[in-house]
């Protein structure tokens, strides 16, 4: 099972700061999360940056997830 770790604003919404999910690609993670917490659908989950095993990916969908992956959601990073 991959571990998903949330930032403060998602934690405040769902009351958890991390979850274990079964996923093969990143899409499975999102489907699973919204299935468990429908309120996440309205959140800015899809506007956040994601780090999968410490590799930052903007707007992922088909990124492979390993059984021991760590997946961090965090604020979308821009620049000047």
């Amino acid at each position, binding site marked *: 099972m991959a571990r998903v770790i949330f*930032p403060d604003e998602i934690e405040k919404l769902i009351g958890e700061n991390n979850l274990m999910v079964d996923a093969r690609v990143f899409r499975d993670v999102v489907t699973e999360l919204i299935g468990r917490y429908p309120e996440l659908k309205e959140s800015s989950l899809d506007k956040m*940056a994601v780090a999968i095993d410490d*590799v930052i*990916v903007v*707007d992922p969908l088909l990124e492979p997830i390993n059984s021991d992956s760590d997946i961090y959601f965090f604020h979308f990073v821009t*620049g000047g």
Partner: protein
Amino acid sequence: MKNTNEATDASHYKYIGTRSIRPDGFEKVTGRANYGADLSLPGMIWGKMLRSPHAHAMIKSIDISKAEALAGVMAVVTYNDFPSVSSEIVATGEGTEDLLDLARNLMADGKVLYHGHAILGVAAISRQIAEQALALIDVEYEVLPAVLDVRDAMAKDAPVLHEKMYTEGLAETPNTASNVASVVELKKGDVDAGFAQADVIVEREFYTPTVHQGYIEPHACTVRYDEHGQSMVWCSTQGHFDVRATTAKLLHMSLSKLKVIASEIGGGFGGKTTVYLEPVALLMSKKSGRPVKMIMDRDEVFKASGPGSATRNWIKIGAKNDGTITAMQGKLHYEAGAFKGSPARLGGMTAFTPYDVENMFVECYDVVVNKPKVAAYRAPGAPQAEYAAEMIVSELAARLAIDPIDFRLQNAAKEGTKTIYGPKLKRVGLVECLEAAKNSPHYQQALKENQGRGVSSGFWFNIGGSSSVTLNMNRDGTGTIVEGSPDIGGSRASMQLMAAETLGIAAESFKTIVADTENIAHNDGTGGSRTTFATGMAVVEAAKDVIRQMKERAASVWNVNVDVIDWVDGVAINVGGSEKLSAAEICATADRTGGQISGQGNINARGAGPSFAVHICDVEVDKETGKVDVVRYTAIQDAGKAIHPSYVEGQYQGGAAQGIGWALNEEYVYNDKGILQNPGFLDYRIPLASDLPMIETVIVEVPNPAHPFGVRGVGESGIIPPLAATAYAVSDAINAPITDLPCSPPNVLAVIQANS
């Protein structure tokens, strides 16, 4: 996911790392390059904005009749001319923004929120008549008290800017409107436990003022609206695809009906990642049936584009006597300007990232005030928070009697360090930068009387994103690199070098062009130091695509399997035989072998190129006047791999100069009514040639595992360390703590007098 892009051994590079002449150089030194204000079209008219003389007011009425009656006036547009706008989060060059806020910033909707807030646009047959028309418009205001600082904005009875804005991120949903848009917490470990282990704890609150990017080219555009065909925007922007997306959304146009051409851009530093003029100009073009040109005056740029946030940041750091930092804590307050969306959270994400410390906690407040909506400014949010953190780190080192570089080395972030925002750092070069600083001739040099020295680290992410590149090969074996990333600092040269290196063909054989939105697929803007990293990766992909095709063509000419073809120095070689075909030969006969050759690299670049910088600053203080002179300065930064070393050094030096300006003299000065007192280069004092010494540079190269050539973005980290390096040097020279920027003569003299 396993990263397959292993960095290659640098010593084998033939083109990368050379100091080639930039391909767009000739146009730029002869005055032939066309910038935002340089396009004129037949029948073109001139647009100007009417701007608020008040910081906060209700608009009671607007009378445009006299202006409309003036001969030569062709169109007047207000907020009501926008098609219906609703609240919707849209991606802009700055990340995300509420479309409604964007529209209300372009032209006020019944309420003005800062001095200079645009109210309406007028287009006339000359710039002078447009200005005369503005003087004929009567606006009746009901002036409201202005909120000019986070403290005022958060006070109990503060006037509220937005009646429907409720603080997000609180444990309980609030039921009264507030100027605090959001509160976010970032944490790692347990700071209370960490502080309990500390032998020494230092805490202070720091202030940084509103500052401007200060690009020399004002915002400008020329547009033509065409209901039936193809509307066109020519403008100076860091991201023309973002201009197209935002403008089309606001005006209910399809993307295919709006072409945006990025002119040459005269500086941006983050400030040209959103729109201020283009949608209004298009509305006026639609109304008048004429092309419309708009150029901001310099005072408009200061009053009403997007400066960098003023902040009040409290930082507390604890360490053991042996130099181990045990806990780092911060409470950050960032001004967003008139609409929510300051980079407070980015401040929180960067403040302590140069440190491998177990316990961290940061609270980030995004606060609206009656000032222009902030925009990105070079590592947005990071300089302010890292300034505060680095000042405390330096003070702590002094209290512990440890060399400030040794103290930083002892606690330095490295591969595997878990960041406060979650993931662990990959291979990074902070330690190498600190060591280079320690070994630099500068750091060995003794200080003289009235001089002081400061050292500071800085961190920025440098995220990839979407880039598309087409590499069109010509029949003579030369090629055109078609990219969609506006070249703001010489990146065309870097693209050329990366294509040359990948293909093994001389760099001069390639021309790099920045295509408009019709001639290349979507590209994210030039921002976040992503261009050489991500667009460079796309160039490599496109070049590899060309190599693949070249090999196929050679194989078909020789009637062999493609597997036996090697590609060496721009030549296809039949490994099984002795035949060779150069790129030029393959291109010359391409029609016979299947048509012309064109490579494609459309990517969403994975990974990031975190770049750490370490700066050393020596200042001399005139203790009778408080005036500070920078006498020596060294900028050290990890470039991963410097594709074009001159332009890498240029980024370090430019970042240092901007940061020195931020530290010493730059600030927005408002009066108590919120009227900006210094909207010009006379009194918004950016550094001059005579203000600065040579800025020494050291390029550290710790290859980025996420890039084929090991590139890290270098544009932004360099503006972070100068604030604390300079301010701490002042503090060292006068032997008194500095907390508030700028270290302008009156402020420094006040600190000297208070401590004598």
